[in-house]
């Protein structure tokens, strides 16, 4: 029983970070209507940045996060401006090829620059245990969860209450009309891509202290984010939050009770079952799948 609770807690803690990654992907998908297959690589880049800032300059992840996040926001804006925007009106297939190509490019860039070995950001504070009622978790994981969930909630608030959020939601719903009433559509695409990238990056920094990074680390996050988004519904932010927590739990339970090597298989199994049973996502709310070639 204690093992079950312990595993579940560990899974949910991790799931909070998955939710943050997935919410970023979902924001980019919902607004810019691009399925970003390089989303996991954005997490990977932030993990490397965390590692190097810690190794080279002894900058704690909880400080470097304030440097990495704005830089990655800027990186997302540049990606949108110079890579995604020029092919905004291309066919969905072309868009998929471009982001897939980008993901391969970033993986290989990481391989050339940093080599193939696993790098761990060993930050002692993050590895200390914290226990409540017999359930134990490291500070690193607890912090990651709390920050991630706080950011997901902050994003909900932004989307619901601020003018920027309202514009983004209007764009997600009907970009032509948004343009017609005078909203600078391209500018807000930059904002959406910047925000989505920043969320992936923050997740990367938060995960840094307890997961090692290697050039292909991003692929796992891309897969996770996709499963979460499909589970929670394309364009559905609240669905992403719940889906992220669920997937974190599934992955961790499978690792503990079946076999650590089968974690990915469990994620895939969930993906396939959802696609077979309810392709519109458990919580529904899919936004114009045809536009991105999903129908």
């Amino acid at each position, binding site marked *: 029983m204690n093992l079950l609770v312990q595993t579940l807690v560990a899974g949910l803690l991790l799931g909070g970070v998955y939710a943050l990654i997935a919410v970023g992907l979902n924001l980019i998908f919902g607004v810019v209507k691009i399925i970003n297959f390089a989303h996991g690589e954005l997490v990977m880049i932030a993990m490397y940045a965390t590692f190097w800032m810690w190794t080279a300059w002894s900058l704690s992840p909880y400080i470097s996060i304030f440097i990495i996040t704005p830089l990655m926001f800027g990186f997302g804006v540049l990606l949108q401006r110079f890579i995604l925007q020029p092919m905004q009106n291309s066919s969905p297939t072309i868009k998929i090829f471009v982001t897939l190509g980008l993901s391969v490019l970033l993986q290989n860039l990481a391989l050339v620059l940093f080599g193939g070995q696993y790098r761990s950001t060993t930050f002692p504070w993050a590895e200390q245990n914290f226990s409540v009622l017999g359930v134990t978790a490291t500070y690193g994981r607890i912090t990651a969860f709390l920050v991630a969930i706080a950011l997901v909630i902050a994003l909900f608030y932004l989307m619901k209450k601020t*003018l920027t959020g309202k514009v983004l939601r209007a764009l997600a719903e009907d970009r032509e009309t948004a343009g017609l*009433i005078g909203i600078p559509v391209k500018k807000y695409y930059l904002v959406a891509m910047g925000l989505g990238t920043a969320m992936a990056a923050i997740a990367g920094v938060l995960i840094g202290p307890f997961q090692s990074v290697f050039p292909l680390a991003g692929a796992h996050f891309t897969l996770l984010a996709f499963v979460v988004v499909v589970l929670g519904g394309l364009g559905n932010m609240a669905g992403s939050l719940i889906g992220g927590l669920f997937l974190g739990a599934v992955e961790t339970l499978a690792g503990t009770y079946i076999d650590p090597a089968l974690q990915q298989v469990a994620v895939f199994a969930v993906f396939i079952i959802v696609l077979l049973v309810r392709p519109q996502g458990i919580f529904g709310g899919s936004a114009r799948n045809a536009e991105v070639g999903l129908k």
Partner: protein
Amino acid sequence: MLQVKNISAYYGDAQALENVSLAVSESGVVALLGPNAAGKSTTLRVISGILPAASGSVTFNGEDITTASPQERVELGLVHVPEGRKLFGTLSVEDNLLLGGYCGRKDRKTGSRLERVYERFPKLKERRNQDAGLLSGGEQQMVAVGRGLMAQPKVLMIDEMSLGLAPLIVKQMFSLVQEIALEGVCVLIVEQHVQNALAVSHHGFIIESGVTRVAGTAQELMESALVRESYLGH
């Protein structure tokens, strides 16, 4: 004020407009008429800049805006209420209206503009927090027009305002259009219901198959043979 000269436009390879010209010079209501698929909505799209003109020109207060962005045109006061209302259905009534005021938000008078729209449409105030997609057709049209008014239009183009609305609501909307025009706005209405439209307009244009066929005062149009035969049925 608004002058459209010999524009043509395409959807991909398909030509939708061949040679459309029209002018809106003074405040008041002007009607753009024509049968289904004549190119009325396409004309408005070219005027508001979401569809490029392949040839011809659009000028606004003497300024050539043929290649200006939709945003620039809204900022100049050229505002388009699209066919089918095109509200953001998952956003509240108030958020839809606020987004209509996006371009003018910097003057910090959005709040008072919103109040004016609510005075004009008290029903919308009651429903301000409801999702726009859940309103009735008439209420949705009010939000659409209200969203347009939030942009402080000098020229307000309303496409098929009365489509699908109950006769009583149609009457209300037409008198509303007259009210807006009395406040000094040029209202360009696109209508299939020729009689209703000409009754409130001082000028009218008829386009058919992407070409302007007739232009004149409402009186002239009512009396012209083409209009009497093809549109008024007598």
